[in-house]
């Protein structure tokens, strides 16, 4: 088997926060029932000058600062998002130029709702294993949209993480990966539409839970592993409740998911969600730790990964970039009016 794995990683979370209770008050909803119902206390909000390009560049720079890779050796950049700044013109080229990886590299932007980032990891793995590239940079980032007053408004937030995939000096080996994909229309945004639509309760059992549990079970069956074999587990986190429930359904404990569970304090960062969860785990992981990750993207599909942390992580200067925990702590609250301005909810002529 290949030595493919994670060589470095970096994350970025905008520092503005809005509390779920403040959104609830703006819409005359009961704050307590909203917070308890969704399990989200507050969410990150991108400022006027932050988008998927800036978040991706920040994450990419953080990942490069933790290793000594020459950016020119990065042979591919894939950015997964459902809020690319341009409909036509890649985010990946901006990232490539900003980190000095151009011009001899492959670039493409990915979209698969909330799992485009993990799909980018799989592509980079394949290119590395096939020796087409030495290093690949996979990024998942979003400044996700939510219609004013929609249930999504309490969750849709901003953030992202990037992973340099390679075979040398890996801090974590990716032992295996698999995907589970069907055509399930639980959540979508049509071309030209500003806000996504969703199928209400249909987004739960037949979408999120079915895909994550099926994909996770497939991988554990293939590897003959069980939940107890893992130190950490990360699941896509559209709200604070679903990842804990799906973990329980699969036999993982709350202790295993706690470190990667960020949604309650930063919201759902969509393509960044499971990637940031993984970054948070790598911030504290020790050699030998085994990590299970399953992402979920509406439409619908899941990617599962079995990861083992290597001794190399002790040599990595993790403090050269801010940890996920530090970015979560470094926050400034805004009110709904400021949120409305930042998220372009206001209308004037």
């Amino acid at each position, binding site marked *: 088997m290949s030595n493919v794995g994670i060589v470095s990683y970096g994350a970025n979370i905008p520092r503005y926060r809005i509390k779920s209770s403040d959104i609830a008050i703006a819409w005359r909803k*009961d704050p307590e*029932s909203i917070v308890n*119902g969704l399990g989200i206390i507050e969410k990150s909000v991108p400022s006027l000058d932050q988008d998927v390009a800036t978040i991706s560049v920040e994450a990419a720079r953080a990942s490069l600062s933790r290793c000594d890779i020459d950016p020119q050796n990065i042979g591919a950049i894939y950015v997964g998002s459902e809020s690319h700044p341009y409909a036509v013109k890649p985010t990946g080229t901006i990232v490539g130029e900003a980190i000095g990886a151009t011009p001899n590299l492959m670039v493409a932007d990915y979209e698969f709702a909330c799992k485009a980032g993990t799909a980018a990891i799989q592509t980079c793995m394949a290119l590395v294993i096939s020796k087409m590239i030495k290093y690949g940079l996979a990024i998942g980032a979003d400044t996700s949209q939510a219609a004013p007053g929609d249930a999504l408004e309490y969750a849709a937030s901003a953030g992202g993480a990037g992973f340099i995939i390679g075979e040398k000096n890996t801090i974590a080996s990716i032992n295996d990966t698999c995907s589970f994909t069907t055509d399930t229309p639980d959540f979508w945004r049509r071309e030209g539409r500003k806000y996504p639509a969703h*199928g*209400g*309760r*249909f987004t739960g*059992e*037949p979408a999120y839970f079915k895909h994550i549990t099926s994909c996770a079970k497939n991988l554990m069956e293939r590897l003959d592993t069980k939940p107890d074999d893992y130190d950490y587990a990360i699941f896509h986190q559209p709200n604070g409740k679903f990842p804990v429930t799906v973990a329980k359904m699969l036999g993982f404990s709350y202790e295993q998911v706690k470190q990667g569970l960020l949604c309650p304090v930063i919201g759902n960062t969509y393509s960044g969600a499971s990637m940031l969860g993984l970054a948070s785990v790598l911030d504290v992981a020790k050699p030998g730790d085994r990590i299970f990750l399953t992402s979920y993207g509406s439409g619908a599909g899941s990617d599962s990964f079995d990861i083992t942390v290597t001794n190399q992580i002790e040599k990595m200067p993790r403090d050269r970039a801010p940890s996920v925990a530090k970015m979560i702590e470094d926050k400034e609250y805004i009110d709904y009016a400021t949120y409305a301005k930042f998220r372009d909810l206001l209308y004037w002529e």
Partner: protein
Amino acid sequence: MRDVAVIGLGITKFGELWDKSFRQLIAEAGSKAILDAGISGKEIDALYVGSMSAGRFIGQEHVGALVADCAGFSHTHIPAVRVESACASGGLAIRQGFLTVASGMNDIVVVGGVEKMTDVVGSEATNTLATAADQEWEAFFGATFPGLYAMIATRHMYEYGTTREHLAQVAVKNHANGALNPNAQFQREISIENVLNAIMVSYPLSILDCSPVSDGATAVILCAADKAKKYTDKPVKIIGSGQASDTLALHGRKDICTLEATVHAAKTAYKQANIQPKDIDVAEVHDCFTIAEILAIEDLGFVKKGEGGKAIDKKITTLDGEIPVNTSGGLKAKGHPVGATGVAQVAEIVLQLRGEADKRQVDGAKIGLTHNIGGSGASCIIHILEAM
């Protein structure tokens, strides 16, 4: 009029059935009923199906022919009739089937009820259900059924001292019964505190005071009673059938704490059956909201007007009470696929009178009643059944 008996029944699971379509559901219920009755397709003279709003829920009208087709009767060319009376569509379909057999026009008919409600989002389901209210005078001003029944509930609280705890007891009882019904949408018990602390929909009704949006279907086979023993050892006779109407809008009523349609339909059915309310051993009533079950047991004459809340508090209507109500779990816990509900009520009573209701069996039940309401009480269909 000749006597009519139920000789077979078929029920699908109720719930959010993402992997089953409208036609799959009704075909499943129909074929189970036909197998249960042990009849052949050639013996069926006609088909009646209750469906409130397939046009809005799944974009499909012409439901009578569709059901005949998907159930495999297109080649026998039998008459197929879709019946609509809002949430009482199923009950009315039973009555139409009953009348044609009683009249001698048909010997054996299949009566089905079906709704596929989860293909639309929650707000669209609420709006579709609200089409059963008065569009000009209620829905136009934003009223939905939770709001209308909440007004009934607050008035009942004011007039008779009914409390939120009384209302909650209805949901607690029906969930306890639903936990014993393998076809119920919710098979778990809940507490009064769960109901009181649940998200408020429209005061005083929390989400656990409201029946859910559901998919599901049920079918029964009706047969001339003198031929019923040919097919089953346990036919159940329909000894009373009553139907009544009232103002479509709530504000037109003399007293919003009484559903006059229930009072009148019950009077007709009791008279036809030649029985009194005290003779009923088990009843399935229309608990679309908890307050609706309190009104039902009052208007059906089980308790005095205004005593409904207290009667539930005294456990009169629990499974081991004086008159068990909604042993299936009711609309609240069993689920409320609107077109199927009235037929499912009859199916539950038939199971009870056959002695086949398993863990929720009411010992020695001989006479049962079904009570199906359309809208906020603008239509009501009641059937009284007796083991033969």
